[in-house]
């Protein structure tokens, strides 16, 4: 199995205000970026994050070789069922994404 983390440089996530999470996928060169564009397809990503496609915003940034995803956090920051104040762990869902078929 090939994971997204194995074909990219770094994946990080963070809260963007109390209502959004943002995930940045960094690639070390253009070839890696091309693979990431295909591997991290939006449907696949939305499924892994447990959100709807309509809620997922995607930014492909070739100059930075970054694919960025932003989405409303499923549970508002700091409310009783929130597990992760700064949204630090969401990156792992994409790092462990199985991209065998696409990579």
């Amino acid at each position, binding site marked *: 199995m090939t994971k997204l983390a194995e074909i990219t440089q770094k994946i990080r996530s963070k809260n*963007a205000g109390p209502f959004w999470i943002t995930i940045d996928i960094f690639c070390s060169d253009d070839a890696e970026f091309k693979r990431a564009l295909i591997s991290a397809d939006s449907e696949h990503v939305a499924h892994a994050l*447990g959100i709807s496609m309509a809620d997922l915003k995607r930014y492909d940034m070739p100059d930075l070789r970054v694919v960025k995803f932003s989405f409303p956090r499923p549970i508002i920051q700091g409310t009783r*069922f929130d*597990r992760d104040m*700064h949204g630090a762990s969401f990156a792992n869902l994409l790092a462990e994404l199985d991209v065998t078929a696409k990579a």
Partner: protein
Amino acid sequence: MDKSVTIKILIPSGALGLGYDRDALMRGIEHKPDLIAIDGGSTDSGPHYLGTGTSKYSRSSIKSEWRQLMQARAIANVPLVIGTAGTCGADDAVDWLLDITKEIVKETDQDVTVAILKSGQPADRVISAFDDGRITPLQPLIDIDHAVLQNCTNIVALAGAEQIQAALNTGAEIIIAGRATDTATIAALPLLRGCHAGGAWHGAKIGECGALATTNPSSGTIMITFDADGFTVEPMGQNARATPYTVSAHMLYENSNPLKLYEPGGHLDVTGASYTALDERRVRVTGSKWFPSDIYTVKLEGARCGGYQCVSLALIREARYVQNIQNWTYAVEEKCRKKAEEQVGEDFTLELRIIGLNATLGAQDLNSQIGSEVGVLGIITAPSELVAKEVAKMLNPYLLHMPLTDDEEMPTFAFPFSPNEMNRGEIYEFCLNHVMELDDPMQAFSLTIEQVRA
């Protein structure tokens, strides 16, 4: 426009309380800045701070850093501006930092003039704006009504450049501002002096986290020089470098949209920005655009009580229980819930998270694995402290002793504390994601001047 205008803003670090490299700060002072700006807070650590109007950082570390910045300011003889004082920027948090400032003035025997900009919003003002259709929701939509607004323990509006400029125009040496956008304290002076508007906002965004936009984030201090066409980034830490990559990539950081930034009075678009290395350490940025809006709005933040919480933690090392932890946890939860509903009614929530399995991501984690031990964290939230504690006490014997099957000896698990229940008190929740329209930028803010004497 005066083509020769340049304004240097020194940013000691990403936030007061985070620490910085003192040599880098002093190097920044040697470069003769026009203003020192620092951020005092953020919503990043959750709703507790706005809910209570308190600071996340320790008073003594804030005092120690603020004293150094006040001393640096006196040497440079330029204004020192802090935005979002006391983590949340509520009026109480502004007063807290003002008290600290007064103590420092006495201890250092240096008089200062302080401008105090408050961002706190009385519920009545927001309710009347709501009734007049002057409150607009942002994405994602959160429903509000009079009751939600009335129940907020604090509502703040985010000040923009205009309110900071009003404070600067008083000639104060120190400006303590309540909730403000991260960028406003940095962008205010360059905009006031006629620097390029897109450059002012973009440069402010790059600088607001201190040296985070460089190769050495922990060095803290950064200088942004603004002019008629754009801005230049120069880290003050000796081994820190700004590169076109570190600077342009910073727009990704904690921004849901990496190309646009909405501020009171308009928005920044960096789509056409170009980043050029001037040398190994400095980067020049031009081409960012500012689009003024027709209507002047300020973003609102509000927090209200979300119940009272009590938590309890059991540590489980016995292999058979660890292997069957999910089923054991379900059984504990079910039994405790049933008992509590009989005793105190249904108005509480009980949740058990398995630390060492999937406590961070919950059911979304499809790759979780179990290790040799797990922690089971029980979280009870109820409308009163009394009920939360009662249910937590009912959970206690199940967490300590519940067997996996009926026909086996009663087990005992590790409790790290006595009592094992930890009362977390009142919890808060953010309940506003809206902007409020103003006729005049100062309409919802108050500005006072205080001569603080030793």
